[in-house]
């Protein structure tokens, strides 16, 4: 299934669906999220419009000359669990990362309509080929952790948490558990 971000109908995807994503995403890891929360608490604007946006949890390697970006696979999303509900409440539409989200994040996603996609960690060289443009939009001092606006095309991912309560990290392993 090919999806364009922002998705027209996020309720049409289900946990376990294999998808390719195209459109704009913003990169942010723990350090950038901490600054988002500081900005929210100080009543300041976030460095991008979070309404309808997609965040990709990634800290890429430096780009080789002639490359748009370096290797860019997903990092562990749960490190941002403490921050994500505040963004989801403000209209964040999707997140891309790896690993489980906690109960609070999942409840917030269901309530406000945010989908979580899992990308395959360890395929960073392949995924970098699906990124067609990259520019730093905030927190340049954070280096690899700066907020980047990326254009992605045919970026492979799996739907982990859908808007129907499905969770691939629960459902998938349960099917193959032998104990």
């Amino acid at each position: 299934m090919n999806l364009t971000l922002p998705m027209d109908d996020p309720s049409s995807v289900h946990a376990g669906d294999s998808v390719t994503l195209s459109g704009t995403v913003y990169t942010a890891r723990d350090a950038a999220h901490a600054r988002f929360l500081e900005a929210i608490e100080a009543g300041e604007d976030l460095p991008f419009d979070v309404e309808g946006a997609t965040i990709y949890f990634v800290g890429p390697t430096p780009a080789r000359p002639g490359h748009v970006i370096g290797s860019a696979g997903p990092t562990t999303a749960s490190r941002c669990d403490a921050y994500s509900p505040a963004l989801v409440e403000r209209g964040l539409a999707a997140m891309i990362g790896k690993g489980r989200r906690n109960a609070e994040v999942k409840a917030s996603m269901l309530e406000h309509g945010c989908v979580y996609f899992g990308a395959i960690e360890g395929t960073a060289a392949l995924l970098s080929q699906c990124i067609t443009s990259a520019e730093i939009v905030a927190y340049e001092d954070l280096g690899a952790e700066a907020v980047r606006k990326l254009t992605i095309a045919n970026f492979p991912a799996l739907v982990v948490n859908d808007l129907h309560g499905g969770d691939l990290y629960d459902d998938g392993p349960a099917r193959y558990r032998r104990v």
Partner: protein
Amino acid sequence: MSELRTVDVAEVEAVVRKLCVEANHELREDHVAALQRGRDAEESPIGREVFDRLLENARVSAAEQIAFCQDTGYAVVFLTIGQDVHFTGGSLAEAIDRGVAEGYSDGYLRASLVRSPVDRVNTGDNTPAMVHYDLVPGADIELTLLVKGAGCDNMSALRMLTPAAGVEGMKRFVVETIEKAGPSASPPVTVGIGMGGTFDRAAVLAKRALTRDPTGSPSPDPKLAELEAELVEAINATGIGPAGFGGTVTTVAVHVEAYPTHIAAFPVAINLDCHSHRVRSVTL
């Protein structure tokens, strides 16, 4: 007793530089073979797709000479030094750090270290290296580099079991740790287990166990080899599978190292390594 041997630290610097680049750009052949075996054994269609992508990723990174994982890790160096070696040309530790800094810069690798867990300012060049020194008889130098990503290191664990908990308690602790880690450790994982010693030694043993060459080689101790095989089966029965999406291959290798311990103690450390398993060794 061997003759005194003189080694310029510049030689160590050059080796470390080269290994940092190679380890991050080219997945080891034996680990590629382990992933291929995992692919063949995996029952889940999504799991097989994950293996296919990992194998394709390894081909692309080697061809393009770019990192196969964006977390280019902490440079962990195990140095076994013959006591008849005399290093010249300056500080050995500083030479290792220069090698890391050059390798990370030349290889377009990510600087992932901060100078303190409190202020979290990036050191800019991925130094310092985490070096473990062992002094042995002779005049050889063995240098092993383990590039350690944090995603899986974060999911590692250490527990001071009691002797009564025994091997069964240790196995439960291992499976519990793997289940808690789930997708966050980026399975299929390589599992390093250090048993015995003291609180601190167990952790170093677990890390060192990850460097065993080649991937999947059983322990030379038959009892430990049997334990490793049992743990592979128990871990794969969890159903976590490749990337945590469900499947029958959650680990490609379990390496157990044991060491003498106190009559009152049974320390167990479990260090997980993701499917981007990066180890390089040389003898200087």
